[in-house]
C-alpha cells in the first residue's frame, strides 16, 4: 500500500502548539507511508489540490489528513480523494486540533501526541477496504408532527412544492399557541386573523392529510422509508358526519370543566369545539368529564345531533402511513410555575400566566376581550407584570432565557392600557431582551407612549391582603435596583411571564424518532450553527420552539427551512445508503439472536441458512451504531469501516509506545 500524510497548520490553530513539519517527517518512518507534508490550510482549494496532485504523482492509494475533527471536514476530504480516483473510505483523519493543539500548550508533548495519532490513523488505513453505498427509493411524502404555526408553515411549503403531507396534531385543533394569542408584537396585529388563512389553507389543501386529536404511536424505518403508526384518539364523534353546528355544545349539561384552550380560565362543556375558528371545526367529547361516558347517564348530545354523529362506543384507532421524511414542530409548554411558593404556587386566583392573560385580552376568550380578574370580575386598574418567572433561575434548574417574554410583556402592557385607559402597568424586569427588527422600539413605545413603568429588579413575593373596602389586593414586593430600594405595589392583577420548556411528551417523541433532546425537552439540532434544522437522524428535521425558544417570525422561517430541506431530499431520484453498516460473517454466526435483541433500529432479522438460524442485517435500516458488534459472543457481526481488526490495529499502534 502507498500512503500519503498531510499535516495541517490550520493557520496558527495547530501550528502554534504543534511542530507539524516534525510530525510529517516522523510519519515517513511509518509502514507503507511514501509521502508526507505539512500544509497551511489543507481544507482550502490549493490544499485539496495538493492532495490530488500528490495522489497522482506518488501513486497513493490511501490518504491521512491530520487536522481538525472529522465532524468538520471528513466529508470534504472524502470527496477530494474521490476526485483523484481513490475510494472515499480509503481515507482517514487524525484530529490534532480539538484533541491536541487546542487543549495543550506543551509543544513537544503536542508534537509527540500528534505523531502518534497520525500513526494510529495510518495503521487503521492499512486495514481499510473500499466501500460502496447502496441506492434505494424514496417515499415522497412528509410527516409533520405538530400543527402550530411552524408546522403549518412547513406543511404548506411542502404542499406547495408538490409533496404529500401528513400532519399529526395532538389536540383537537391546529393553530398551536399562536391561536391563543390576542395580538402579536411588534405590529399589534390580530394573531388569529393572520393565522387563520393558513389554518384554513391546511384544511383545504388537497396535498395535506390532517390527523387532529392524534399522536405518534411509533416510527420505524429510515430516511426515505419511514413507517409511522398514528393513534387517532377517540373523539366519540364521527367527524365525517359532524358539521360543527354546535347544538351538542349548547345542550351539554356538564358545563363546569376547566377550559384547556382558555388555559384554565373559565369553564367549558364536556363536548366542545375549542374556539370559533378551530380547524377542523368538529366536536370532541372529553371522556373524563362526560356524564354519559363516566356514569352512563345522559346522552343529550346524541339526542340533539342532527346528523347522528355521536358515537359513545368509539375507540382509539391506529392507522399506518408511509413517509420519506419527518418534520417535528411540537412547540413548547410553560414550565410548572406552581412550584414557586413565593408567587402563590398557583393558588392565588388573580396571579395569572402570560398565556392566561392572552385569553383574558382575546375577544374569543372567556371574558370576550374585557379584562376582568378571575376571582371577582373586577376590571384591574393596577397590573403588575413579572418577567423571568422560571427563566434565568438556576435555583430551580432553569438557567436559560425564554426569549420572547420581554416582547410579549411589552405588548400586553400596551394592550392593557388600550383596554383600560385609566390603568397603570408595571413591569419588573432584569434585562430587556429585544434584539429583533423593530423590537427595541416597541418596548420604548410601551414606556414612552403607554406609560408602562419598568422597574429593574426581581419580585421576591406576592402576598394577598384585604383593602379597607374589602377588596383583595396583591402586595407585590420587589426591588428597584436602580434606585437601590425595596418597592411595593398593591396590584389588582399580577401577570407572570412564565418560562418555557419543550412540549409535554417531547422526550417520549424524541425516543420514538431516535433524535437527541436536552434536559428541558428541547430537541437537539445536528450542528448549533450550520445545521440548525437537521437532527442526527437522517430524514428528521426540526421547526419552531421544539428546537429552542424563538418567536413567531423565527418559527415560521424555520418551518420554511425544514420544508426546503425535505424538498432537497426528495429532489433526488434515489438516495444512497451509508456503507458503514453491520454485516454478518455467516460462518461464525451461531444464531444466538443477541444482536437482534440489542439492535435499537430493528435492523437485524433471523434467517434460516441450511436449517440453522443466522442473523441478517437489513442494510437500509442499519445505522451502524455497533451495539450488535459489541454484543456478539462470536465476533461474527462486524461494522464496515469499524471492524474489530481495524480498531485493534489502532490500539496496537498506540500500545507499542
Amino acid at each position: 500500500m502507498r500512503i500519503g500524510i498531510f499535516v495541517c497548520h490550520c493557520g496558527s490553530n495547530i501550528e502554534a502548539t504543534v511542530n507539524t513539519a516534525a510530525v510529517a517527517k516522523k510519519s515517513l518512518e511509518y509502514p507503507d507511508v511514501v509521502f508526507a507534508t505539512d500544509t497551511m490550510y489543507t481544507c482550502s482549494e490549493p490544499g485539496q489540490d495538493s492532495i490530488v496532485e500528490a495522489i497522482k504523482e506518488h501513486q497513493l492509494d490511501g490518504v491521512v489528513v491530520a487536522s481538525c475533527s472529522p465532524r468538520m471536514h471528513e466529508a470534504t476530504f472524502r470527496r477530494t480523494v474521490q476526485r483523484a480516483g481513490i475510494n472515499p473510505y480509503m481515507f482517514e483523519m487524525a484530529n490534532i486540533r480539538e484533541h491536541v493543539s487546542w487543549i495543550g500548550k506543551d509543544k513537544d508533548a503536542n508534537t509527540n501526541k500528534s505523531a502518534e495519532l497520525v500513526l494510529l490513523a495510518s495503521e487503521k488505513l492499512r486495514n481499510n477496504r473500499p466501500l460502496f453505498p447502496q441506492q434505494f427509493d424514496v417515499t415522497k411524502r412528509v410527516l409533520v408532527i405538530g400543527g402550530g404555526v411552524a408546522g403549518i408553515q412547513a406543511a404548506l411549503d411542502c404542499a406547495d412544492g408538490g409533496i404529500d403531507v401528513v400532519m399529526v396534531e395532538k389536540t383537537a385543533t391546529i393553530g398551536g399557541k399562536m391561536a391563543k394569542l390576542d395580538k402579536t408584537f411588534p405590529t399589534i396585529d390580530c394573531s388569529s386573523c393572520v393565522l387563520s388563512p393558513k389554518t384554513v389553507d391546511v384544511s383545504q389543501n388537497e396535498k395535506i392529510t390532517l390527523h387532529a386529536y392524534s399522536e405518534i404511536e411509533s416510527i420505524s424505518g429510515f430516511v426515505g422509508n419511514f413507517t409511522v403508526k398514528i393513534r387517532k384518539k377517540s373523539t366519540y364523534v364521527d367527524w365525517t358526519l359532524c358539521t360543527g353546528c354546535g347544538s351538542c355544545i349548547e345542550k351539554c349539561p356538564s358545563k363546569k370543566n376547566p377550559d384547556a384552550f382558555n388555559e384554565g380560565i373559565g369553564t367549558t362543556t364536556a363536548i366542545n369545539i375549542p374556539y370559533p375558528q378551530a380547524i377542523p371545526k368538529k366536536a370532541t367529547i372529553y371522556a373524563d368529564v362526560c356524564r354519559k361516558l363516566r356514569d352512563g347517564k345522559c346522552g343529550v348530545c346524541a339526542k340533539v345531533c342532527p346528523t347522528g354523529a355521536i358515537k359513545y362506543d368509539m375507540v382509539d384507532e391506529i392507522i399506518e402511513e408511509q413517509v420519506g421524511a419527518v418534520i417535528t414542530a411540537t412547540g413548547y409548554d410553560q414550565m410548572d410555575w406552581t412550584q414557586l411558593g413565593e408567587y402563590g404556587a398557583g393558588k392565588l386566583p388573580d396571579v395569572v400566566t402570560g398565556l392566561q392573560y392572552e385569553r383574558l385580552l382575546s375577544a374569543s376568550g372567556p371574558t370576550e376581550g374585557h379584562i376582568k380578574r378571575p376571582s371577582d370580575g373586577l376590571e384591574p386598574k393596577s397590573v403588575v407584570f413579572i418577567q423571568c418567572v422560571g427563566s434565568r433561575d438556576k435555583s430551580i434548574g432553569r438557567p436559560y432565557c425564554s426569549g420572547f417574554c420581554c416582547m410579549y410583556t411589552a405588548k400586553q402592557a400596551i394592550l392593557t392600557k388600550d383596554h383600560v385607559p385609566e390603568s397603570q402597568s408595571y413591569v419588573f424586569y432584569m434585562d430587556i431582551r429585544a434584539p429583533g427588527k423593530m423590537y427595541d422600539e416597541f418596548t420604548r413605545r410601551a414606556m414612552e407612549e403607554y406609560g408602562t413603568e419598568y422597574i429593574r429588579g426581581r419580585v421576591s413575593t406576592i402576598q394577598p391582603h384585604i383593602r379597607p373596602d374589602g377588596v383583595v389586593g396583591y402586595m407585590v414586593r420587589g426591588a428597584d435596583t436602580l434606585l437601590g430600594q425595596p418597592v411595593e405595589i398593591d396590584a389588582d392583577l399580577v401577570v407572570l411571564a412564565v418560562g418555557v420548556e419543550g412540549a409535554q411528551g417531547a422526550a417520549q417523541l424524541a425516543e420514538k424518532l431516535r433524535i437527541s433532546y436536552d434536559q428541558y425537552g428541547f430537541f437537539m439540532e445536528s450542528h448549533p450553527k450550520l445545521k440548525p434544522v437537521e437532527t442526527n437522524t437522517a430524514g428528521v428535521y426540526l421547526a419552531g420552539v421544539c428546537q429552542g425558544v424563538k418567536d413567531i417570525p423565527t418559527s415560521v422561517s424555520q418551518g420554511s427551512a425544514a420544508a426546503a430541506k425535505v424538498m432537497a431530499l426528495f429532489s433526488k431520484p434515489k438516495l444512497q445508503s451509508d456503507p458503514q453498516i453491520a454485516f454478518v460473517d455467516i460462518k461464525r454466526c451461531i444464531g444466538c439472536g443477541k444482536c437482534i435483541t440489542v439492535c435499537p433500529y430493528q435492523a437485524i432479522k433471523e434467517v434460516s441458512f441450511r436449517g440453522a438460524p443466522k442473523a441478517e442485517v437489513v442494510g437500509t435500516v442499519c445505522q451502524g451504531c455497533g451495539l450488535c458488534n459489541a454484543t456478539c459472543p462470536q465476533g461474527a457481526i462486524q461494522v464496515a469501516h469499524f471492524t474489530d481488526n481495524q480498531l485493534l490495529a489502532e490500539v496496537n499502534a498506540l500500545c507499542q509506545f
Partner: protein
Amino acid sequence: MEVIQLDKARNTNFLKEVEAESGQKLSTCYQCGNCTAGCPGGEFYDRQVSQIMRAAQLGLKEEALGNRSLWLCLACSTCSARCPNEIDVAGVMETLRSMARREGYVNDRPIESFWKAFLDMVSMNGRTFEAGVMADYMLRTGRGWSNLAMAPAALAKGKMPFFPHRIKGRKEVARIFKRYAEKRS
C-alpha cells in the same frame, strides 16, 4: 458622592477572603435585587443587600463593611431561600459582619453591645437570663429604656427571673469563650 476610581479602589484580596470564608461564589450574582426585594430589614438599612453584594463583587471593602445594614440583618435567610443563583446571601452578610467586627468597622455599637452582653452572660453562667442581659446592655449603652415599658408586663407574668440559672459546666463554657478570645486576639 464621589467618583470611585474603580481600577484603584478594587481590593481583589478582600473579594477572595469573602468568597473563601462564606463559601459562596460572588460572580454568580447577577444583581436581580431579589434579596433586597424580600429583606424584612431593608426599610431600616442604609445600604441594601444587593448593593452590599455588588460592593463585595467589585472588591470595594469600605462600601461592603462600613454600613449599618450588616448589623440590622435579621438572619431570616429569606434572601438565601429565594436567590435565583443559589447564593447563601445571608451567609455572605454574616461573613461580612464577622469581618467588619474583626477589622474595626462596627457600625452599630448598641447592637454589638447587646450581643456582647448576651454572650458575657452565657460565658459567666452557661445560660442566659433576660433581666441580666437587659441590665448589662442598658448599663453599657445607656439605651434600651423602651424595653422597660415591657418589663412590668413581663414581671407580672413571672417571665423575668432575677437570678440566672448557673449550670455545673459553666467553667467548661467559659473556656470556650476564653479560647475564642485568645484565637481572635
